[in-house]
């Protein structure tokens, strides 16, 4: 068992939505990130997975709950006090077309974190480090003075990764890093991320809606639905034998690239995820759940441990 790098306890975040209403983006979520391991976070759009990532990144403050880095609570630190932890965690965003400032060259983009943490004395050293990072992510040196719009999506995401690697962090939060890319390019980036993790002992929080991507890259997987985690566990276990009905539904929905297996999918829950403004009482999945019992609409199931896994369902006791 490896060390816990980062821990979130009972995080809650509501966004105001007009008078007396709120979007309950994240409600009571706890999770652990281990050193050198990847946690995959899957869920449909609007389930609160990006909000969770941003809270861990100290970009938005939680309404309540606690975030700990190596056992130290950092939730309520001011931006200035948080600076010493910033170096440890970096982020890669979803949209490579929007996450790079169009008016900065590759050099200044990758150098920005180096300069912010004052890692080098001289400009030459910084540039040398930038070039080193570029070769790590597979960008040729001659791109140093080019601008983001001259690159394809995959190349831009490489720049973003180089930037995240710059301060030599312990954790990188990847928010849908490949969902804007075509399959062939997506695989290039995933291979890069995986090899970086192995060679540098990085930990990842890998947020994605794409189950197969999460399955490839994660050691453990957490499934989110309407602001809550409904199941976590080692990735292979979760995918091979999902415990929560939602996870089962989700894994069965993914279309297989195999025309011979098209009828395998069981017809289950219909409809869509309800609005997080007024989530259903009790278990949040019960209106769509084929196994819903009267109890499900009354009490909310707690996340219970069973072996290495955790599941929040009244069926699993």
């Amino acid at each position, binding site marked *: 068992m490896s060390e816990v790098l980062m821990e979130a306890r009972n995080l809650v975040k509501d966004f105001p939505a007009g008078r007396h209403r709120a979007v309950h983006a994240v409600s009571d979520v706890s999770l652990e990130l281990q050193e050198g391991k990847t946690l995959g976070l899957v869920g*449909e*759009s609007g389930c609160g997975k990006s909000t969770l990532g941003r809270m861990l990144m100290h970009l938005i403050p939680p309404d309540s709950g606690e975030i700990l880095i190596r056992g130290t609570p950092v939730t309520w630190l001011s931006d200035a006090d948080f600076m010493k932890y910033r170096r440890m965690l970096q982020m890669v965003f979803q949209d490579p077309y929007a996450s790079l400032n169009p008016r900065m060259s590759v050099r200044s983009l990758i150098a920005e974190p180096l300069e912010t943490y004052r890692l080098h004395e001289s400009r030459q050293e910084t540039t040398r480090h930038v070039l080193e990072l570029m070769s790590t992510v*597979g*960008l*040729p040196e001659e791109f140093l003075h080019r601008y983001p719009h001259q690159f*394809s999506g*995959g*190349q831009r995401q*490489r720049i973003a990764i180089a930037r995240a690697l710059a301060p030599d962090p312990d954790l990188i939060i990847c928010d849908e890093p490949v969902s804007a890319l*075509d*399959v*062939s*390019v*997506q*695989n*290039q980036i*995933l*291979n*890069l991320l*995986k*090899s970086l993790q192995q060679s540098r002992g990085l930990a990842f929080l890998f947020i994605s*809606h794409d*189950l*197969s*991507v999460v*399955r*490839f890259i994660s050691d453990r997987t957490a499934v989110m639905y309407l602001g809550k985690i409904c199941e976590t566990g080692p990735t292979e276990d979760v995918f091979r034998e999902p415990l929560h009905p939602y996870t089962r*539904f*989700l894994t069965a*929905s*993914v*279309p*297989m*690239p*195999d*025309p*011979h297996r*098209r009828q395998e*999918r069981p017809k289950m*829950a*219909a*409809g*869509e*995820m309800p*609005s997080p403004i007024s989530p259903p009482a009790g278990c949040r999945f019960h209106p769509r759940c084929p196994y819903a019992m009267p109890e499900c609409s009354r009490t909310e199931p707690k996340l219970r441990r069973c072996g290495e896994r955790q599941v929040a369902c009244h069926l699993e006791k």
Partner: protein
Amino acid sequence: MKEALIQKEVLILDGLCAGFPARRGEVRVLDHVSLSVPKGKITGLVGESGCGKSMTARAVMNLIRHPGRVTGGRILLEGRDLLSMRKKERRMLQGREMAMIFQDPMSSLNPVMKVGKQVDEAVLVHEHVTHAEAKRRTLEMLEAAGVPDPERRYHSYPHQLSGGLRQRIMIAMAMVCRPKLLIADEPTTALDVTVEAQILDLMKEMSAKGTAVLLISHNLGAIARVCDDVSVMYAGKIVEQADICTLFDRPRHPYTRGLLSAVSSLRDGSEVLSVIPGHVPNLARLPAGCSFSPRCSCRGKECMEKTPEMREISPGHRIRCLWEEPGKKPGEKELETEGLAAE
């Protein structure tokens, strides 16, 4: 007319070319695209972004935006050539005999109009019926498209609906005149997996009722789930065409093989994913010879000189590749991680 009735193929594209003027000459977005969409079946068109698959759909529906235009070939709807028709005649076919649904169901619905009215409109344009009759048809169609509580949803505005519901409205709008051909351009890309599955089922249902469907997608999973025949597109050209099982079991074109192994390596638990090196070429600067040759792992010298033609290798299975022997297995699993190596 008689011929049209017995014809199985609802839509035939024959050597369709499209492009638009650029600084030097013309950029060809579609290069001799030929395919057919038979009645009661779903035909898939798959490819990566920028390969011309949306342009194909737009060409059929006469929706290519200025300054792009169709520059050659024929589009036959039940034997009638759309391109030689008068404008009005062609327009009257749209919505009645062929309809289209789009990728983003939010921006494809008029934000200031009730969704019910937008569906009504499709009826009223083509048939001389009363508003009450149109509404009745709309409600019926909404029901069939799986919209819960159609009476209430009829009066909703698009922003009040979820993505899945909006796409169902779009499908209802497309199907309300019972068209013979439905073109779906990435209908599930903007939706979540669970909703995607439902929408795909709905499309399957529609085709089972006799509609010919052309499904355009970049998602091989979605294609595999519902399609009967598939065409693979790369850089404006169709590179491989076969029925679904042949294409997934015995792909012949190196590009198709690359795509398939990229997708399947994600699931079979391999440590390193298979990739196609490099990226999609710029259509304005296509390489000489086969467009795929710079990324192809088994290219020969002639690949960079001679442009391959489409040829049939077994009944119904066509490829655009110079390699003759199937035993050669070009492009099998590539373990290259250096994405930029081929540039």
